[in-house]
């Protein structure tokens, strides 16, 4: 990654130039060794400055991002970035997020790329806008730019709003920007309170679930009881006659009901569901046999990494790891509002990618894309591709069925649990050998997984589209290429081994609906690799932390490992009966944030219950914009990963999903919470932003698996590590 921009460059040397719309950056002194060409971050796709930054006559500065707030604090971080480079109070900035009519197209808010893509773009756009504003002031005041003072949204006390009369910011960005000296920062890297929290905690209408439009009506969609079920018969007369019901909409097997009041929709939909008969065809695998099944299904097999020569034959340590289907299980089921008026469709959605969603809805409805507008409004935390896009598709179809009326579709809990795309079940196998000098001589890793992305995309990604009279077929799944990867994300360890080989078996047949769940394959691959590292360390009779350091060459990786170990007190830790400690480390995607996690657990041999006593993490996310935002994401990732690792698996029978509510899919509750969680940050001012949001999932799982093995003397390799499994492994 190239270091961003001009360290130490300041406002010196800007020369005013009159009249031209083209920015006079050509007169900027070039950096020694600077590169021409590629614009940083998302500027490469949307190079016009005023697509990102606008100055209003009223003094308000509007910043546009194609990314969406998912609860990860991105709005706040982007405001900080813009405020820093524009030299204004954060409260002066209004941030507009993902809206196909107003913001740049930054595809999805996913993969922990918002800071790298949007943050970088806004950083540079804001810096360059500042330069332009300085030039405008210089021209107006007749003072050389380097003598100007920029403070508080004004240049020599002339407010930005007074300097900008028209299209001055409508210029292309340059590859280099005069970024502010990190040492002089006042906003970035400082703890700024989240801009969105106060409204959420006082009942302001923030979420798409809170959106109320004049004349809005309420809809419920009948989801089929299982994948691929066709509607055989529907006697809608009774439901249609219930109080408040406006319409029963049917298109093939897509059935929905619209009513005036929300509860009227709920009760009528129940009656409608009782009057529907379905032809069920789904044949789901035996959930106990899924790991035997995966390697038998046809797969695309790719050697994604090879170094030296890996051996075959005996004398190696081998292990197999398993991960079940797991759910996003967002606390707020998906919701969307849509309005079709004057042949234009507007959809308010919490989907992660408004532009791709627009394309999918356009294809599904037959409307031209320019007549479809998707506006992001927050939903509950999604952690990836959940039901949000499908709810938007439902709403779009119903809005078309009731032109001129805003239609709100709210998924019920059972809808979300049964129909959201899950994180795929995965199987992995590791083989390795340690040499006499205590280093890994050979490391082989292979994994089997479905795709980790079925996002829209085409209309065939939308559940509603499958049910239409003229259905859209789901597109054939494709792997996400390395270095990012999908199921094979983080399958290539950051460690350096003498010989190593990694194989990705991409299984296209999907028995259950799957897509991207936070960290994608990295969660399972890191769990497997970190567990296996401990098994290799044991063979080398080495301390697990020391063993990892032995194989890490990246100094930043070493730093987080050391920090976590030190803060945990790894050296001095004393083993007590029933207690164990474990360590996990990874650099997310081998490209993003570095995270190391050390934890201590206590295992009750008789009940199999695991009490997590302490978790200590260290994280390096590059240049920190909002330190508390990073701590929040890592803490949250640790707790969520603890829930996945100790509790979660989707249950299904031979035909249907049977995890249809919280009773059928329990997650961690307060009594199961770790007793303490600490996060220590390593800041790298001036270094590129590194994505943080998914960085804790895998290392936490690795640390827990290793701690349980240490506490019990028995290695568990099948997720989740439930009390029943622990009991079974331990015996009586």
């Amino acid at each position, binding site marked *: 990654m190239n270091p961003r921009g001009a360290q130490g460059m300041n406002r010196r040397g800007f020369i005013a130039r009159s009249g031209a719309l083209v920015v006079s950056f050509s007169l900027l002194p070039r950096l020694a060794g600077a590169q021409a060409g590629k614009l940083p971050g998302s500027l490469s796709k949307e190079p016009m400055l005023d697509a990102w930054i606008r100055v209003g006559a009223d003094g308000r500065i509007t910043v546009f991002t194609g990314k969406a707030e998912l*609860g*990860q*604090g991105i709005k706040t971080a982007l405001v900080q970035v813009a405020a820093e480079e524009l030299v204004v109070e954060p409260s002066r900035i209004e941030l507009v997020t993902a809206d196909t009519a107003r913001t740049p197209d930054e595809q999805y808010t996913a993969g922990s790329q918002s800071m790298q893509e949007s943050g970088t773009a806004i950083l540079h756009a804001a810096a360059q806008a500042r330069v332009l504003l300085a030039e405008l002031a210089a021209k107006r005041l007749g003072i050389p730019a380097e003598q100007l003072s920029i403070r508080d949204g004004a240049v020599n006390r002339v407010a930005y709003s007074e300097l900008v009369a028209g299209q001055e910011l409508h210029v292309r960005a340059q590859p280099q920007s005069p970024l502010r000296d990190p040492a002089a920062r006042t906003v970035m890297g400082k703890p700024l*309170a*989240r801009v969105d*929290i*106060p409204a*959420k*905690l*006082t*009942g*302001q*209408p*923030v*979420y798409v*679930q*809170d959106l*109320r439009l004049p004349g809005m009506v*309420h809809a419920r969609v009948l989801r089929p009881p299982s994948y691929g079920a066709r509607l055989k018969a529907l006697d809608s007369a009774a439901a249609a006659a219930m*109080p408040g019901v406006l319409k029963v909409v049917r298109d093939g097997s897509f059935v929905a009901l619209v009513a005036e*009041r*929300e*509860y009227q929709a*709920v009760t009528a939909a129940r009656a409608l569901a009782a009057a529907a008969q379905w032809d069920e065809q789904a044949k789901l695998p035996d959930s106990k046999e899924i790991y035997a099944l995966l390697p038998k299904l046809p797969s695309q097999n790719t050697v994604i990494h090879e170094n030296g020569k890996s051996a075959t034959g005996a004398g190696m340590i081998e292990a197999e790891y398993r991960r079940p289907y797991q759910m996003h*299980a*967002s*606390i*707020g*089921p998906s919701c969307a509002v849509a309005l079709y008026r004057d042949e234009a469709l507007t959809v308010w959605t919490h989907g992660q990618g408004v532009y791709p969603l627009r394309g999918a809805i356009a294809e599904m409805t037959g409307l031209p894309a320019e007549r479809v507008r998707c506006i992001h409004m*927050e*939903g*509950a*935390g999604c*952690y990836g591709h959940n039901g949000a896009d499908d709810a938007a598709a439902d709403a779009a179809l119903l809005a078309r069925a009731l032109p001129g009326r805003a239609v709100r579709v*709210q998924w*019920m*809990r059972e809808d979300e649990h049964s129909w959201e795309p899950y994180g795929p079940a995965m199987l992995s196998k590791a083989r390795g050998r340690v040499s006499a000098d205590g280093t890994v001589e050979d490391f082989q890793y292979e994994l089997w997984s479905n795709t980790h992305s079925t996002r829209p995309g085409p209309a065939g990604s939308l559940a509603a589209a499958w049910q239409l009279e003229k259905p859209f077929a789901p597109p054939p799944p494709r792997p996400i290429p390395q270095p990012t990867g999908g199921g094979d994300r983080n399958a290539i360890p950051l460690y350096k081994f003498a010989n190593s080989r990694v194989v990705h078996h991409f299984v296209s047949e999907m028995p259950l609906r799957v897509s991207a769940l936070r960290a994608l394959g990295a969660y399972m691959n890191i769990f497997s690799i970190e567990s296996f590292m401990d098994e290799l360390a044991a063979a080398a009779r080495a301390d697990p932390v020391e063993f990892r350091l032995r194989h890490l060459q990246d100094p930043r990786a070493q730093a987080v490992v050391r920090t976590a170990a030190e803060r945990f007190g790894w050296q001095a830790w004393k083993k007590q009966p029933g207690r164990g400690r474990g360590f996990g480390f990874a650099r997310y995607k081998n490209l993003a944030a570095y995270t190391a996690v050390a934890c201590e657990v206590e295992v009750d041999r008789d009940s199999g219950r695991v009490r997590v006593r302490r978790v200590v993490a260290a994280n390096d996310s590059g240049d920190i914009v909002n330190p*508390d935002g990073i701590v*929040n*994401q890592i*803490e*949250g*990732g*640790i*707790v*969520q990963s*603890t*829930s996945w690792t100790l509790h979660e698996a989707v249950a299904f029978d031979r035909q249907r999903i049977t995890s249809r*509510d*919280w*009773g059928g899919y329990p*997650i*961690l*509750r*307060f*009594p199961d*919470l*770790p007793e*303490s*969680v600490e996060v220590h940050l390593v800041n790298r001012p001036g270094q590129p932003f590194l994505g943080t949001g998914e960085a804790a999932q895998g290392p936490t799982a690795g640390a827990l698996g290793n701690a349980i093995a240490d506490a019990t003397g028995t290695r568990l390799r099948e997720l989740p590590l439930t009390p029943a499994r622990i009991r079974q492994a331990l015996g009586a």
Partner: protein
Amino acid sequence: MISLDVNGKTQELDADPATPLLYVLRDYLQLNGAKFGCGLGQCGACTVLVDGRAVLSCVTPISTLAGRRITTLEGLGTPEKPGRVQRAFVAEQAAQCGYCIPGMIMQAQALLERTPHPTSGEIRKHMSGNLCRCGTHMRILRAVERAAREP
């Protein structure tokens, strides 16, 4: 017509008496605090106070609420003047997506009204009916402790 006391105000509602309070709060009164999380009484996102006790509004029909005092998030404070528990949650930045937090705040309010100085174990136990999917639990606990410390 059913008459309800919501945040100290009498509301006349032309709704089916079997309607759960949650839908009345959101759909009739445009109050956003109580959230739809499951409709099954399993997650606590819809928590409100009835006569000072935490109640799941998604499984409480309005027919049972005549003459009883209903308090929602909006009744604890306003954006300009947030209440004690709301202030504590903001101070601790105890939210990620924030969707579960109103329910947490109401549950905490109920606890603090009965047990002004709960132990950390008591807080964990009391909050166990409320789910958080983002993993904000540690901050939520700190926020409740902080609110308890405030006069």
